[in-house]
């Protein structure tokens, strides 16, 4: 199994809602990543987890809260988002040395 699975594929939420994005992999990777991609822009790194511990936080606003409950799962909890947070959110995983990242197909988020 060489897949990274993200759910949901599409999400529409209001600014007062709380929602979560989920990511799962079964490749035995111990590093997992969240990227944000706006239309016609490259992905931007948000968070990196290494051995289930947060190792990189790219100064992301607190309305985004990552969680890594175990080595296969990565969540991104969303609260009080703004319309400018609308984007494609990509999850990825890799061996800890970052040799090669495998990406999920993303969650397209729209904030109304």
């Amino acid at each position: 199994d060489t897949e990274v699975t993200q759910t949901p594929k599409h999400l529409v939420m209001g600014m007062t809602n709380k929602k979560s994005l989920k990511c799962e992999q079964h490749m035995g990777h111990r590093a997992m990543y969240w990227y944000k991609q706006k239309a016609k822009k490259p992905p931007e790194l948000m968070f990196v987890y290494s051995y289930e511990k947060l190792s990189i936080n790219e100064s992301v606003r607190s309305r985004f809260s990552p969680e890594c409950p175990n080595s296969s799962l990565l969540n991104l909890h969303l609260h009080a988002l703004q319309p400018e947070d609308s984007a494609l959110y990509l999850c990825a995983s890799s061996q800890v040395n970052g040799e090669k990242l495998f990406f999920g197909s993303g969650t397209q988020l729209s904030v109304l």
Partner: protein
Amino acid sequence: AQTVTQSQPEMSVQEAETVTLSCTYDTSENNYYLFWYKQPPSRQMILVIRQEAYKQQNATENRFSVNFQKAAKSFSLKISDSQLGDTAMYFCAPIQGAQKLVFGQGTRLTINP
């Protein structure tokens, strides 16, 4: 902060032609990985090819090859015998330190029939 420059925002070639996408980057690391990822209209990020900086030999993967010039910090991608399915956004991405993959702005490549 690491910078990655892809100087060609858009390129267009005919099917079966060869095309080269350029990339330059800045890093203070000595050992690192470099990647080319493609993103077709489906928006799935797909690894095209990987180069290890300590290896002098340029990486090849079927029709895809790189020209890696470490001193010049240049990492170009050559696509031979281009196919319609190669139409996508191509991102150059060096990895800095532990796990920090940074993407260039991308080159939109169109293969015309």
